[in-house]
């Protein structure tokens, strides 16, 4: 393998890693607010990509993406209000099964609306054959869009959680729900907001990657499980680490094609998930001391 090819693999890995990181951040936002792992997280990505493709038939690309993000945000809010909000002290098993049920319903609805065909948005700049040459490594401008937008999302979230009242309220709720409520924060609204935020981020991610990876109704579950792998790898709830973990998983996956047939790509990443869960459930960046106090 020459050095150009090596970097070509790295770039491909970073692209996929970025989308895994986006899904993982979505997991983290809801997990931090509620302690729920939302198994329908991958469906938001699918929903965003599919809606944008449909809207793009009628309105220009930026408006279509905005529209798709709004639709997904609305669906996220709807899910929380209809299914989660009124449950009192539900058990983990119950929440897992409910979110799995939701993911099936979204997927089946998408199947009936859009059918089984594979769709994609047009490239944001240039076409599928445009590429930028960095010293022999060819990079599609869309890859830069994916990585750029992921970076923007991370920066935005960091600013949001650290410097806005709303973001701080959400953090307060995840740190101590009762104390936050005593301070006059509506914990319930914060949960709804967390679903909206993670749906919006997922949908935006779905729009940005769709020219490269394509979207169809069935991409949600694999994305969810890889997003979860990344979330675990980085330590559940830690979004900055999730980005790093996403890149690691993306690059590992992209090099795995070199060793094993591409059909086994998912096998590699899920095996990584299992190994991490067995060996170090606190994640590679998490501290072992805090892990000892948690239940896995």
């Amino acid at each position: 393998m020459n050095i150009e090819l090596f970097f070509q693999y790295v770039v491909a890995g970073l692209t996929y890693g970025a989308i895994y990181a986006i899904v993982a951040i979505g997991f983290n936002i809801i997990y931090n607010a509620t302690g729920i792992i939302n198994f329908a997280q991958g469906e938001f990505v699918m929903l965003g990509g599919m809606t944008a493709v449909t809207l793009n038939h009628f309105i220009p690309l930026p408006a279509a993406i905005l529209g798709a993000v709004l639709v997904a945000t609305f669906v996220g809010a709807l899910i929380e209000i209809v299914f989660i909000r009124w449950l009192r002290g539900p058990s983990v098993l119950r929440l897992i099964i409910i979110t799995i049920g939701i993911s099936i319903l979204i997927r089946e609805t998408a199947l009936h609306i859009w059918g089984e065909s594979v769709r994609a948005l047009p490239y944001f700049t240039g076409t599928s054959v445009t590429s930028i040459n960095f010293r022999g490594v060819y990079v599609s401008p869309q890859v830069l869009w994916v990585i750029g937008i992921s970076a923007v999302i991370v920066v935005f979230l960091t600013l949001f959680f650290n410097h806005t009242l709303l973001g701080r309220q959400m953090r307060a709720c995840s740190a101590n729900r009762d104390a936050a409520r005593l301070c006059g924060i509506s914990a319930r609204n914060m949960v709804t907001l967390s679903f909206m935020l993670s749906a919006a981020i997922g949908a935006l991610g779905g729009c940005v990657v769709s020219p490269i990876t394509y979207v169809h109704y069935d991409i949600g579950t694999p994305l969810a499980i890889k997003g979860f792998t990344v979330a675990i790898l980085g330590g559940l709830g830690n979004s900055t680490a999730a980005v790093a973990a996403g890149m690691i998983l993306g690059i590992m996956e992209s090099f795995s094609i070199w060793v094993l047939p591409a059909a086994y790509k998912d096998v590699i990443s899920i095996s990584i998930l299992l190994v991490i869960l067995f060996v170090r459930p606190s994640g590679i960046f998490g501290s072992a001391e805090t892990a000892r106090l948690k239940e896995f």
Partner: protein
Amino acid sequence: MKAKHLQLLGFSLVIVAIQLLTQFTNSAYHLTQLTMTAYYSLLIVGLCMLIGYAGQISLGHAGFFAIGGYISAFLTTHDLSPYKTKGIVAVLAKAGVLTTRPDLYGGDLLTVNPWASCIMALSAAIIVAYIIGGPVLKLKGHYLAMATLGFGIIVYRIVLGSGLLGAADGISDVPSFRLFSGIEITGRSSARVINYYIAWGLVIAGMALLLNLIHSRVGRALASIHGAEDAADAMGIPTAQYKLKIFVLSAAFASLAGVLLTHYNGGVGPSEASVMKSVRYVAIVAVGGMANLWGALAMSLILNYLSLRGYFGTFDDAVFGGILILIMLFAPGGLLRRQILRDIRHIFGAKGKDQGGEAA
């Protein structure tokens, strides 16, 4: 006569009644789907034991089903005659586990015989269950769900990606499984009635085994684990061991179902390993009332039959998704519970502790 014997007898009568009904109404073709339902039910009662009694969720049981089905299908269809004289094949031939049967083109096909392949498939599933069960069952809640889901997807991806296993087409032309001379598991319509009874007979035997297990030392240990795991641990009950044993037992049920259904259908495809199948099994256990073997069996009989007859049309998966949500929202203790009245009061009264807490 104890209650469980009466129940088993009652269920056997129901099975006979259904067969007689199809006989008299001249609709014996229903028996095909009912037989397939029986094999799925075998998996479901095993899973019910794991989820309801041992309190451990598994979203990967279609994986064990597929391990059973695929190994058996592969061994009984893969022609070994080119290696006839080579090491391991020669040993197998000496041991009498190989059979010769004519293939489509008149040539001879040397394959493993169904009894041997069934045993190999079961052992493989049990070994896999032991290996992954140890570390997986240390996990709880989300982590357990994701790990088992991950296992299911790995099996799915492997069967879908391996050319040797037929990739997206699966394996077809699986021979019938001759149990004794004259009795075989096959999809041929001439053997429909006998196959119906073989399948349901197995389910009833499985139920008898599980019911005995529940009312034994193991069952009481499981109940204590379910009630308060730490307390059970402190009492000296080897909780991890019991959980693992039930996990392996349920995996064995699933793989046996996979082996037999594959012989009955004459083939197996990757959809049997899909995540949706695993979720469907969990949905049926949930509707049946989690810790309620009879409930799970009854719902499995009804829902699998309706689904296999195609009553849900293109909404097949959506129906099971919808069922999951509705049950978990309104009756987390399951539909078929003894205290249905209390449930109704619980929903409208909105007072008291969440019933779903029991199932965690």
